[in-house]
């Protein structure tokens, strides 16, 4: 995989691609789930904020992605009805929030914009004790959601009115919105270490 260009999964040849895919997905290994997004150690060349879409936050205000510039942020895509993986992700984010003295921005983007209105997001934030100063909860259009999820390599699909299958990916962005690290599953010490480096 070429890292120099900063592409998360740049591949040129198909055979190579399939091989890498098999490796990245941990084919042939049983046991613990393997991250589907390999950890990225170098900065992406592009800013996720360049997508240019406009969202609404838990206060009901219009927010461009560009308005998130200025400090490093950790992004997760969740939905409020999610009762399985999302609470674990939230717990993880809160641990990281505490371990970074609250200086890291935390962004939750809903995968269920139809249900998760700004009002519901505000309620969710309150229930989980997320201060508006540090936490940004965003809802948007289906199209903008698809673009952002595709950019962050988050895969999702509605499986029932109440349930979405989705990959559980945390993305660490620098102050400009470039991807510093992605991790599937729960964060390990490396993600926290990099967040601290960014905040230095």
């Amino acid at each position, binding site marked *: 995989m070429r890292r120099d260009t900063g592409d998360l999964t740049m591949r040129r040849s*198909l055979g190579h691609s*399939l091989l890498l895919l098999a490796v990245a997905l941990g084919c042939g290994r049983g046991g613990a789930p393997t991250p589907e997004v390999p950890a990225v150690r170098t900065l992406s060349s592009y800013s996720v904020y360049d*997508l240019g879409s406009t969202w609404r936050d838990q206060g009901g205000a219009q927010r461009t992605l560009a308005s998130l510039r200025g400090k490093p942020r950790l992004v997760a895509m969740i939905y409020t009805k999610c009762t399985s993986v999302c609470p674990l992700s939230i717990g993880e984010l809160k641990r990281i929030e505490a371990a970074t003295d609250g200086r890291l921005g935390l962004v939750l983007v809903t995968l269920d914009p139809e249900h998760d209105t700004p009002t519901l997001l505000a309620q969710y934030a309150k229930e989980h004790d997320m201060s508006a100063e540090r936490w940004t909860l965003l809802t948007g259009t289906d199209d903008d959601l*698809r673009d952002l999820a*595709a950019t962050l390599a988050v895969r999702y699909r509605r499986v029932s009115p109440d349930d979405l299958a989705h990959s559980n990916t945390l993305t660490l962005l620098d102050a400009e919105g470039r991807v510093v690290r992605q991790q599937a599953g729960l964060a390990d010490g490396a993600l926290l270490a990099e967040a601290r480096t960014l905040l230095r």
Partner: protein
Amino acid sequence: MLLTFAIVAGLAIASPAMVRIPAGSYRPLYSAAGEPKVRVAAFALDRDVVTRGEFLRFVTRQPAWRRGAVRAVFADASYLRDWPGALEAGPREALAQPVRNVSWFAAKAYCSAQGKRLPTADEWEYAASASATRRDASRDAGFRAHLLALYASRHAAAPLPRRAETNAYGVRGLHDLGWEWTLDFNSVVVPDDSRAAGSGADARDRHLYCASAAIGASDPTDYPAFMRYAVRAGLTARTTLDGLGFRCAATQVT
């Protein structure tokens, strides 16, 4: 069956021929035993893949999608790398060739400019399960063998065969080019219960590419379909590849 589309979106770009695909159902590669087939509503699909010449007209009108100008978040460094210049798509004969090395964002923007959209993976797979003579050739061993031979002989950068194959719907070259973008390439492909233990979708998706887990597939012998699903799973929205092009679809079937 074949109809020329007049898209009422106030766009001056002449729309190439589209083919009406009637509603029906199909069985995706990954569906649990006993699970009903996936319903696909009627839609229209471009008869042919988008060509370099067509894409050149698009970037001529929309400078933001030219090579060198496109935002890095929308396409990787090899975007349109086989073109001689930002507004040069090659010699005359190259203009009729499929455009390749386009990202998902660029393909989406192109279709949108025509008043169309990318087909969903379900739509694409449904249309692509037709052989030259049968609309549902998904259990046709001869068709399967034919596709296997075709996939094995394809080369990413090779020109499209002079006569792309026309399937029973009248769609051409669905299996000739290589790979084609779908709107929901980043969908989780197994539509079963997401509340499984562990990290749900992650854990199941991983199985898709392991031979030992082919038992999860509705038809483990459908190797061409395995390849298509695996390729989609390896893409990101800004990926560009020599063997990856696209065609557009439309919901409105007029």
